[in-house]
């Protein structure tokens, strides 16, 4: 049974592409394309100005080059910055009006958009190429005053909120890819939880890149008002294509007083084939701001896909007593490369942060944990604990740890630990003796290694992630 399952999963099962007629902006990056995007979305003037300001800045900025995985130069003029299913020119009012092919695509992905068929209560916002196609469970959420919609919709319906918070965590001028995103972002999710509300269900976005030569630039903005709570999930897939595709998203989280945001990602973009051909460049900027007192932001990520993953979900702990957490599993196989980690910036008093990072590399891949813990002089009585463990399979791959630790406050403590090892022969032998085949044994041991992080994921995701961990390491043993 299990063998069959594995056989089914061995290849990237999300690798199909859907034949949907697309409506694209002209190729290339220039003011006209930005105006085109802004126009098609009927955006107000302030947002267009904001985009153009970002574009001005982009002309001066250079691509960063300090990262470990190097990639061939991207020709930004050779990309489509806007692509939408043609049937979307006039957005459908309800799910019934959706292109059946689209629905089918999401069904294949295991994302049921039809509410009737749903069993587990998760509200989904699905983003296909550049636009958000459907958001489910709207009514239930609206009753509680929760706003969960695509960001383009939010710009129309709640401009005051968007204007107030957009770009406050990731400034326009931050770095090359985030500025690029600010200039050309097409869609994404917007969440606002009103004061004192505990969001009754998991919110989820599903990203899919379908069209070729397309960059996906989505922008997510989540605001948790005073005393509220939200748990947010993000999943991603892309079809198998020979060329590399760029994905440069920006995610901003804002937690006000006593609010809590939990953000979980299971990233499974197409990683390229066995020889490292194709795959997604996943250059994402994710940043959370604990703005209010006693607020909490928690990032959990399972990174198994993408040819190159390059992201550092960060927490700025500005409010006193705020808490930042980062749990990560990154798995690289074949020719995948990952440079990921987090930044914990302690600004307020009594702030705490915790980092648990598990890296596994196999095949010819390269894994780097890069993290920053910075305790500023005013962050009295702050605490950080960091643990990064790496597991290596074979001597063709690499595992690296590059933590930056800055302590400027004598009342604060930082502790950092890191280890690198391989799966011991004894453990493997023990499992095999009990009837597991080598691959199952490795799967079991790896799952144990990752348990600390997997536990942090919401139920439905944890099961998927656990399976994904097994699949990603297929063929790496023996």
């Amino acid at each position: 049974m299990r063998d069959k399952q594995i056989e089914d999963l061995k290849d990237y099962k999300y690798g199909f592409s859907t034949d949907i007629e697309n409506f694209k902006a002209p190729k290339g990056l220039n003011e006209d394309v930005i105006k085109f995007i802004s126009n098609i979305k009927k955006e107000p003037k302030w947002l267009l100005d904001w985009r153009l300001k970002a574009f001005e800045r982009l002309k001066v900025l250079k691509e960063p080059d300090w990262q470990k995985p190097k990639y061939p130069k991207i020709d930004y003029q050779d990309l489509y910055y806007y692509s939408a299913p043609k049937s979307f020119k006039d957005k459908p009012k309800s799910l019934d009006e959706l292109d059946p092919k689209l629905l089918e695509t999401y069904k294949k992905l295991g994302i049921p958009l039809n509410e009737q068929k749903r069993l587990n209560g998760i509200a989904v916002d699905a983003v296909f190429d550049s636009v958000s196609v459907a958001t489910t469970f709207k009514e239930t959420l609206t009753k509680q005053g929760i706003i969960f919609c695509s960001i383009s919709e939010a710009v129309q319906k709640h401009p005051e909120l968007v204007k107030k918070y957009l770009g406050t965590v990731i400034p326009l001028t931050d770095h090359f890819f985030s500025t690029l995103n600010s200039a050309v972002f097409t869609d994404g999710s917007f969440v606002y939880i009103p004061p004192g509300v505990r969001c009754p269900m998991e919110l989820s976005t599903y990203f899919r890149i379908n069209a070729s030569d397309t960059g996906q630039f989505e922008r997510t903005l989540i605001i948790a008002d005073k005393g509220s709570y939200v748990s947010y999930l993000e999943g991603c897939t892309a079809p198998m294509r020979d060329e590399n595709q760029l994905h440069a998203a920006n995610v901003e989280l804002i937690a006000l007083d006593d609010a809590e945001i939990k953000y979980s990602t299971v990233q499974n973009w197409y990683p390229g084939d066995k020889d490292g051909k194709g795959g997604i460049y996943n250059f994402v900027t994710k940043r959370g701001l604990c703005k209010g007192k006693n607020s909490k932001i928690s990032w959990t990520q399972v990174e198994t896909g993408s040819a190159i993953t390059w992201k550092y979900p960060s927490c700025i702990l500005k409010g006193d007593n705020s808490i930042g957490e980062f749990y990560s599993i990154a798995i690289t196989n074949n020719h995948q490369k990952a440079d990921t980690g987090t930044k914990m910036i302690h600004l307020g008093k009594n702030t705490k942060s915790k980092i648990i990072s598990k890296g596994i590399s196999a095949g010819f891949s390269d894994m780097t944990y890069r993290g920053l813990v910075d305790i500023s002089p005013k962050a009295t009585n702050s605490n950080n604990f960091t643990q990064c463990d790496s597991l290596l399979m074979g001597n063709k791959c690499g595992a690296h740890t590059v933590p930056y630790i800055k302590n400027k406050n004598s009342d604060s403590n930082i502790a950092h630990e890191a280890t690198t090892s391989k799966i011991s022969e004894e453990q493997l032998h023990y499992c095999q003796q009990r009837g597991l085949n080598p691959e199952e044994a490795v799967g079991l041991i790896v799952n144990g290694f990752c348990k600390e992080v997997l536990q942090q994921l919401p139920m439905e995701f944890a099961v998927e992630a656990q399976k994904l961990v097994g699949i990603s390491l297929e063929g790496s043993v023996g």
Partner: protein
Amino acid sequence: MEEQLKIDFEKKLKDFSYSDQEKKFRETNFKEFLKKGFPNRKLENWKFSDLNQIIKSNIGELTFYNDYKKENQIDKIELISELEHNKIIIVDGKIEKIDFKFEDKDKIEVLVEQGEETIKENINSLINLNNAFSNKFCKIIIKKNYSLKKPLVIYHLTNKNTQSKNTNSRIDFKLEENACLILIDIFKDNSEKNFLNIYYNFELDKSSILKNYKIDKSINNNIKYSYNNVKQEANSISETFILSSGSKFFKNEINCDLLGQHSSAFVNGIFDLDDENHHEIKSNINHLVENTKSYQLVKSVLEKKSKAVYQGKIFVSSEAQKTDGYQLSNAILLSENSEFNAKPELEIYADDVKCSHGSSSGSLDENSIFYLMSRGLNYKEAKKLLINGFLLDVIEKITDEDIKNLIKNLLGVKE
């Protein structure tokens, strides 16, 4: 600065009649330095210590030419009285004296070098600067099976009236098979606001042992950079201990290539900083073959506005299975304004290895202080006792008894 550099380099070339090779060597290095300039924070290696900025704010304009024909003006050199030793005296970058009075003359050879034929790319600009401006390169060879009877002490001195100067010195060492050298660096400064640039090259043949102790204790306003490049063959051992304390700025960089099986490298350090001092230790341990070992331990005690940086890197190539690498740094911040930065880095390409690092920083444990005070010590004594114990960990790692005692005395640490 560029003008000054060019003028000073011209002067330098006029002073000596260099052979063609040496002239070429110096000129290429000079050009490299002109191109790169002093390292700044944009370079990953200098992220926490922007030397360019530090020189600007502490010294201002530097000059690079030293007239080595002049007599040095040091009347009396304070030597270490606690132990008998051989000595090399370097004044403003010029080797004034080499004295191996306790050793067999035929076991030690001192050569004057010409400089390498080719220049390695990607070396840092300070090495280029050193190669271009240093006086003469000495190479000291310790012959096969010979252990020095007494340690060798290198005194790094500055003339009284030397100011706003950059001085460069370079010494190469070769330890032949089974040789042993204990090397102590002592820094005594008679003047202020200079930039001392020191470059050592070590070649360790099979089964040789190098112990290098760097002691920077006397308080001074100079800026220093020291680079140790160590190449180790099979079964060799290198031990480096750094006491980083007195200078305004001091960066110690150690690059260690473990090229032979069963070779091992130890790097230990203490930062004992006060006022606005800013010190750094940067280590690069490259495990390139199977069965090699490295161990690093750095402890810091930071007062007032001082700042300590520790960047330790362990590199393990894909051939280097069975590597054992360990790295630990602890820091105690005693003042609100002190700062500790660390970047313990692992870069690993082999799977059958045991590598780990740990880093912690924080304040003194109040509970321990309370415990000691309840036993009758006052706050000051309790604090001192705890710090002593904290630093003693590193001092105990010193394998040479005499030097261990010397350093204990210097720090006022008792068991």
